[in-house]
């Protein structure tokens, strides 16, 4: 009987160990698959961003003919400048997007227009209009999945709080960028209003993304001795409306550096159990607030912040992976003149 018990105990422990090994291995393989797919999708779409610029006259105060005539004035052309109705903006997510109850939005957000051909009207056959213009945005959000999971699961499976990479896509029919004249005060409404609407136009593309960084910069060959495009990761092609950076006026940055930090699901469960969304380094503004100056020398704030974050994740025994790439914006014809 004793020998039988020992044999069974040994067999059970071997089965248990094998099961754990298989589970851990398959978990590691599948854990970052979704993050990788989301990263690929994000980088592809950012590279497709467009401003569709053209040149037109403005008066001495920088106002267009329409702006002047709409306010009852007489338009006196003064300069011939680059114009666009479209908008490309990156920056801190919690400053670009209005706060919402139960949501934490750490690190950065990016919003732009691209020709993705997305329409809410069901198309079939060859009626695909792949060059339709859409508005797109990405940001990281911590919150519950109760808003976007199937309703019948309520009461069966508990809602999960996770950090997620969210994507906003506005279909062509509801594109808001042309719906109003952009002014300094309302220039972000084309994406803030849809995000505030119920249901929100933001959807999760990947779970367990704890940080997203979007850094608009010059090409390396063009950065020597020149001021960086942004000191705080904010790059806004309409900031000139409020007296901001004139270099970014209606022009796409040549390169956008993208960095995503993903953790796996077991790590996310441990993080949730310990901090429930209150981890200090995963709060808005805690990291990635100061952009690097490629020409300035010294250590890079981006690398320093990334090290702080990865050190924290390592100290908490969380399994993580960092995805990073430099995206060449195809339609950028950057000129500092």
């Amino acid at each position, binding site marked *: 009987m004793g020998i039988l018990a020992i044999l069974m105990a040994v067999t059970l422990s071997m089965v248990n160990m094998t099961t754990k090994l298989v589970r851990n291995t398959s978990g590691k393989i599948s854990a970052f698959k*979704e993050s990788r797919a989301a990263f690929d999708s994000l980088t592809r779409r950012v590279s497709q961003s467009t401003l569709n610029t053209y040149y037109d006259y403005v008066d001495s105060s920088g106002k267009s003919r329409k702006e002047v005539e709409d306010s009852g004035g007489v338009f006196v052309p003064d300069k011939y400048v680059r114009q666009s109705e479209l908008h490309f903006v990156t920056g801190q997510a919690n400053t670009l997007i209005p706060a919402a109850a139960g949501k934490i939005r750490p690190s950065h957000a990016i919003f732009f227009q691209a020709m993705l051909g997305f329409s809410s009207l*069901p198309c079939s056959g060859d009626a695909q209009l792949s060059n339709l213009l859409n508005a797109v945005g990405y940001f990281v959000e911590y919150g519950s999945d109760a808003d976007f*999971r*199937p309703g*019948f699961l309520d009461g069966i499976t508990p809602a999960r709080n996770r950090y997620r990479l969210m994507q906003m896509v506005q279909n062509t029919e509801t594109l808001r960028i042309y719906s109003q004249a952009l002014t300094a005060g309302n220039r972000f409404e084309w994406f803030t209003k849809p995000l505030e609407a119920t249901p929100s136009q933001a959807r999760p593309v990947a779970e367990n993304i704890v940080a997203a960084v979007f850094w608009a910069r010059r090409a390396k060959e063009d950065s020597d001795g020149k001021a960086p495009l942004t000191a705080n990761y904010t790059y806004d092609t309409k900031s000139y409306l409020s007296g901001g950076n004139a270099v970014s006026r209606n022009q796409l940055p040549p390169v956008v550096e993208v960095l995503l930090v993903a953790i796996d699901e077991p790590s996310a469960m441990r993080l949730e159990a310990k901090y429930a969304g209150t981890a200090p380094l995963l709060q808005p503004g805690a990291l990635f607030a100061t952009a690097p100056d490629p020409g300035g020398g010294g250590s890079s704030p981006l690398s320093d912040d990334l090290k702080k974050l990865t050190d924290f994740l390592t100290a908490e025994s969380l399994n993580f992976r960092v995805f990073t790439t430099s995206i060449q914006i195809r339609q950028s014809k950057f000129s500092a003149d």
Partner: protein
Amino acid sequence: MNSLIIAGTKSKSVRRNSRNSGYSLVELIVVIGVILVLAALITPSLSIMRGHNVTAASDLLAGQMELARQTAVAENLRTEFRIWSLPSASGGGSEWNAVQLYRVDSGEALGKLHRLPAGANITGDDKYSSIVGTKNPYGGNATVFNIASCPFKSVRFGPDGSTELDPNGPGGAGAWTLTVIPAGSSPSGNRPAKNFATLQVDPITGRCITYRP
């Protein structure tokens, strides 16, 4: 003296015969104990096997859906994730139990037809599986495995990874889902079955996520 020896020999012989004629009480208790232990080990593993079928079926569906999406993105074409309703392996009626990928432009199959494990199938209830429900306009009847007029329902993926499903959900609200249940099980209360796996497809991002109770 002789008589004593003979008596002793007889006595040993009698004891040996009685030992060979059956099992002792201790031996019986040990055997019954082993049988009980084995039964205790096997009973939960039967339900684990049923759960394993559901897991294997949902993993197969999620994997094929991701493959359809990735193929659409990587090869810049429209792909179709098609779910077939075929006669069940147990000889019963038809049930949603097979999946295959196709190109939309040429109709060419992009891989072999995969049957779900025999112990699991997709529930046809609109509430839990809207993708095979009446509100999904993509579907029809076709011949597969030399069986004419097999019903199918589809999810089509575009080169940007999004689907052609109504972005607002089936009928303008709700989620696009597929729910795998153990074969022969029925809804219990507000849930599709005691054990199930629900796959949700985001029509815009093409992301597939699995929920388990």
